[in-house]
């Protein structure tokens, strides 16, 4: 049985349909259209030619007119299906159009010009992916630069985030020391301070450090995350203490215990934080927008936003670049969905 028929016949108890079952499946079906539809439409549109995008009403699939090179004409000519006066149909190439008359030629016999009323012909269209939407921006714009900047920020920031937050979590879960409660309170306190309310002073700090327009200005401010400290500490508290005591007996230094014993054991929590960090950094917008003003330091998100201002009419590039921006996140989602959803359910963070 196919999935569709299975879905259609699924119910709480065989033989008894409650109206809420019908409503639930109707809602879910609508949800699939509404949630997937826009992204699918974006992806399909991104393969249309510039002319194809201007069509109204738009065609569902990327179609473009078929053209043919005819001897004696420098430009390729568009092909039309023409209904002849005797009722037969022929495929002809259009040379030019004058008012309501079109001059056409048979590609096989280019010498003879046939006059056809324009309402007797329809464009021959074929399915064609305009891959140049994807390849041309690579050459024409600083797109590769943005992509590289985003990858750099995401990877470096995630590594720093994992290291410094796991160090703090290690200190807060393994040791008893004076001021521990103060530190915990401070960590809780920073949970409620989003970048939106300290935009100007962080900009000042970054300027003082000489980092404006450098990618480090994007990487450093968000590196210490209270959510990360919490997540890791919560996990490290569950690790067996005996292991650490045994390592101390064996004269392992505290740093070795952290790096060789606690970090490998905390891998599941580190993985969750890594996934979140990648998402945060890849999608970050407001802060990079404020601190990056030179085109060569733009991340993908900022570059895309700048493009949509400049390329108002060049949707074919814009859509393709949007799809490229979306791709890594889509891949992460497909492979790591389970990690992400359980991570959110357990920590309530995003």
């Amino acid at each position, binding site marked *: 049985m196919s999935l569709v028929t299975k879905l259609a016949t699924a119910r709480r108890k065989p033989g008894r349909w409650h109206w809420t079952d019908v409503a639930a499946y109707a809602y879910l079906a609508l949800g699939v259209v509404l949630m997937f539809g826009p992204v699918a439409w974006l992806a399909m549109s991104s393969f249309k030619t510039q002319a194809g995008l201007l069509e109204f009403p738009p065609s569902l699939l990327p179609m473009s007119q078929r053209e043919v090179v005819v001897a004696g004409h420098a430009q390729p000519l568009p092909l039309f299906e023409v209904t002849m006066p005797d009722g037969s149909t022929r495929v002809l190439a259009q040379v030019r159009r004058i008012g309501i008359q079109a001059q056409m030629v048979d590609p096989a016999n280019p010498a003879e010009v046939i006059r056809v009323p324009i309402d007797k012909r329809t464009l021959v269209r074929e399915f064609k992916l305009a891959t140049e939407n994807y390849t041309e921006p690579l050459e024409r714009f600083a797109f590769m630069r943005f992509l590289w900047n985003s990858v750099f920020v995401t990877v470096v920031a995630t590594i720093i985030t994992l290291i410094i937050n796991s160090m703090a979590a290690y200190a807060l879960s393994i*040791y008893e020391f004076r001021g521990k409660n103060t530190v915990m309170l401070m960590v809780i306190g920073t949970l409620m301070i989003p970048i939106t309310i300290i*935009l100007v002073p962080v900009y000042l700090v970054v300027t003082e450090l000489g980092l404006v327009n450098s990618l480090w200005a994007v990487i450093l401010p968000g590196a210490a995350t209270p959510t990360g400290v919490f997540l890791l500490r919560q996990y490290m508290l569950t690790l067996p203490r005996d292991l650490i005591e045994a390592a101390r007996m064996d004269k392992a230094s505290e740093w070795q215990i952290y790096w060789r014993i606690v970090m490998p054991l905390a891998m599941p929590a580190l993985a969750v934080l890594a996934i979140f960090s990648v998402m945060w950094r890849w999608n970050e917008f*407001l802060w990079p927008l404020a601190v990056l003003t030179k085109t060569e330091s733009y991340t993908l998100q900022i570059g895309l936003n700048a493009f949509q201002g400049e390329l108002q009419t060049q949707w074919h590039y814009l859509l393709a670049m949007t799809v490229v921006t979306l791709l890594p996140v889509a891949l992460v989602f497909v492979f790591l969905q389970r990690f992400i959803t359980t991570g959110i359910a357990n920590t309530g963070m995003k």
Partner: protein
Amino acid sequence: MASAEPAAPRGESSGAARLFAAPLSLLMRMIDWPMSALQRLIGERRMAYAFLLPNIVFFGLFVFLPLIINVVFSVTGGTALFPSQRPYVGGEQYAYLFDCGSFLDPNSCREDHFWRGVSNTARFTVFQVTAMVLFSLVTAVVLNMKIKARGFFRAVYFFPVLLSPVVVALTWKWILQRDGLLNAGITALGGERILFLVDPSWAMFWIVFVSVWAHMGFYTLILLAGLQAIPADLYEAAEMDATPRWRVFWRITLPLLWPNMIVVIVLALIKGVQTFDEVFVLTGGGPGTATLMVVHYIYETAFSNQVQNFGLAAAASVVLGLVLFALTLAQLAASNRKGAA
């Protein structure tokens, strides 16, 4: 992307991870040397401070220090960035922000953009939180029913959460534009084309819609977790008594889900008040100032206007910070109640 991270879950044995792990473990061995020396000096228990140090430095530099400087900025004037070059003006910035004939009419205020932002953000937040709670509740309840392919449907509602705001906004901009898919549908049904992002009311509707579309999955997950925590025997008992479904929902589901509902409401409020990204890309605050948000105002005042007025932006962010602080206290109170329940 994730497979390039050293801490990827399955990365231990793969080649890419080893490529990353080798220099990393070398680095860690190099750090071990001064750390061991330090440990001999201060003893193993005080090593906690050494482990905390990097985080404290980052928090201090990029959170605590800025919090203080923010207040300094808000009580000084001029256009200089460095506080030492800024003259003290006392509460002037705040007085300027709050100089209003009537707080209900942005036109009567000297800084009308700020109040337009406040009024837009307030309307946006009310609509958005209402719609968000409603739709994520319905979705969570439906996903919690005995349906086929639950994992698939959960993923369908969840995936926009991971999309970047720029991607979300551009996706919808493409659909809502003059010759877009939606207008094609409307004309196919015999209607007139609507300029969705040029009409103020439509623009507000669509930023609420798009923001619910993008973030609903997150709140649905929280509510779904709550629904799954409700003991199944309650439902079984209700079924034995042949209790109508709406009554089961009203008497069992909703009361037991209430703590999660409060968390969702407060979280959505906190996020809603800070709305910026999607709206900025989708409408740019327009048409005119119809969708200008408070954070957009702060960004504009400090960074994108001709004259960068850091003092005024800082004063506005202090006001926003106080609102968020109040909302966070509400959240803490709510989650305490959740713990008690």
